[in-house]
């Protein structure tokens, strides 16, 4: 049996060696480097110009045969350890790496002494009394020990998790906070193109879908941008509370909204003559909404 497990492991490793080509290494490196102008993104995620330049630099360095370590050193020589998502172990980062284990160790020592103290005191009592009572006390002392363990865990777990969370990478923090961020209200929209408009689509256009207040400020509360395909008639698009353009101007702030879908040849936020547009009726906002929207008219003048 062990033999087979060994074979399986060898196969697994051999396989991963084959897969591990430069591309994989490149992707791995840019995942581990922080984009400097957009703190919560890695180099691989960011669209900023500096991130593009640095990605190119990584690619060139890999192609010229430099190792992963040399690339990390190149980056941290210029941008400090801040650029690394896995900070190296050295004097100033010692606490960062070992504090969770240190806390674990201290806690275990504490636990050990508490348990031993309880045992000693119960032994002393045991010597003085008869068999019948020993059983009772044994049960009691055990339950007391468990109580300590529970109290201890209740204190220990939150503290360690706070410490670990506070020292974990920005990337993880971002992922966690994004997960808990409320997406509601959500609007699911099916956008359907009029046949005549569909025949004019070349595939170079962009579909803007956005929601704005039915009255008052016209600024989009949520916006989604989709590339248009030549033959596609229907698009399913979601707008939610996290897709705001301006801070605090989110979907949840509005009571009644209008959804607009616009297909444009220009990458512009304003409606341009020649754009195809569909505008919904005013919609009262609920936690989740569904809307069918037809793109059926042409913008004739600049708004």
């Amino acid at each position, binding site marked *: 049996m062990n033999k087979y497990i060994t074979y399986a492991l060898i196969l697994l490793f051999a396989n991963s060696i084959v897969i591990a080509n430069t591309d994989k290494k490149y992707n791995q490196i840019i995942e581990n480097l922080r984009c400097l102008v957009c703190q919560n993104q890695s180099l691989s995620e960011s669209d900023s110009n500096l991130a593009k330049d640095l990605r190119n*630099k990584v690619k060139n360095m890999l192609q010229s045969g430099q190792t992963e370590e040399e690339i990390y050193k190149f980056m941290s020589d210029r941008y400090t350890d*801040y650029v690394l998502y896995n900070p190296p172990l050295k004097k100033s980062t010692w606490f960062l790496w070992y504090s969770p284990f240190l806390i674990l160790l201290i806690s275990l020592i504490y636990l050990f002494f508490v348990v031993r103290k309880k045992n000693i005191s119960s032994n002393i009592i045991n010597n003085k009394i008869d068999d019948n009572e020993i059983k009772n006390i044994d049960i009691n002392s055990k339950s007391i020990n468990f109580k300590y363990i529970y109290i201890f865990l209740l204190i220990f777990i939150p503290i360690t998790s706070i410490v670990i969370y*506070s020292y974990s990478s920005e990337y993880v923090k971002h992922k966690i906070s994004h997960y808990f961020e409320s997406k509601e209200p959500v609007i699911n929209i099916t956008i359907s193109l009029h046949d005549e408009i569909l025949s004019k689509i070349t595939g170079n256009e962009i579909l803007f879908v956005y929601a704005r207040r039915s009255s008052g400020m016209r600024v989009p509360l949520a916006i989604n941008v989709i590339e248009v395909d030549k033959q596609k008639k229907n698009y399913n698009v979601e707008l939610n509370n996290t897709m705001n353009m301006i801070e605090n101007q989110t979907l949840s702030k509005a009571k009644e909204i209008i959804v607009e879908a616009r297909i444009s040849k220009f990458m512009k936020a304003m409606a341009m003559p020649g754009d195809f547009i569909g505008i919904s009726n005013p919609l009262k906002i609920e936690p989740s909404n569904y809307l069918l929207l037809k793109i059926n008219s042409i913008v004739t003048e600049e708004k």
Partner: protein
Amino acid sequence: MTRKISFLPIAIFLIIIYFLFNELNKDPTLIPSPLIGKPVPKFISQTLINNSKITNNDLIGKPYILNVWGSWCYACSIEHDYFIDIYEKKTIEIYGLNYKDDRNSAIQWLEKKGNPYRISIFDNFGNIAIDLGVYGAPETFLVNKSGLIIHKHVGPIDKNYYENIVLPNIKNE
């Protein structure tokens, strides 16, 4: 005894909260430069206007200010007047690093706004800037006469830059 110990977690918690709270007031976009005290990285490039060759060795000799700018950069136009003020004092030379820019629009920008730079180094691919650890224009380096970087400022300089940073640092030169 147990009562005293039971306060320990709360104490630890408060200490952690204190450190986390302190962290809130820091500007997370400021990255300290590892290049302070180190020489300006080696480079070979062209000057922006005359197209002639320039290397890092050409700058050594006197203390100077190295300003990373681009005509596309809005904050650069804000700080530009302060550089012209420093230029008019004639006490320290200012070199420009024209970062990821179009040559013609950079020259036009200087003609329109005035040129405080002794020489502007043309860095259209941003390679020199990467070696300098630049992560966004404008950035301003103060370099001493032996070519070591002694100060780095990120973002547009203000009117106090010359008095508070340049003067005290070059006094001993």
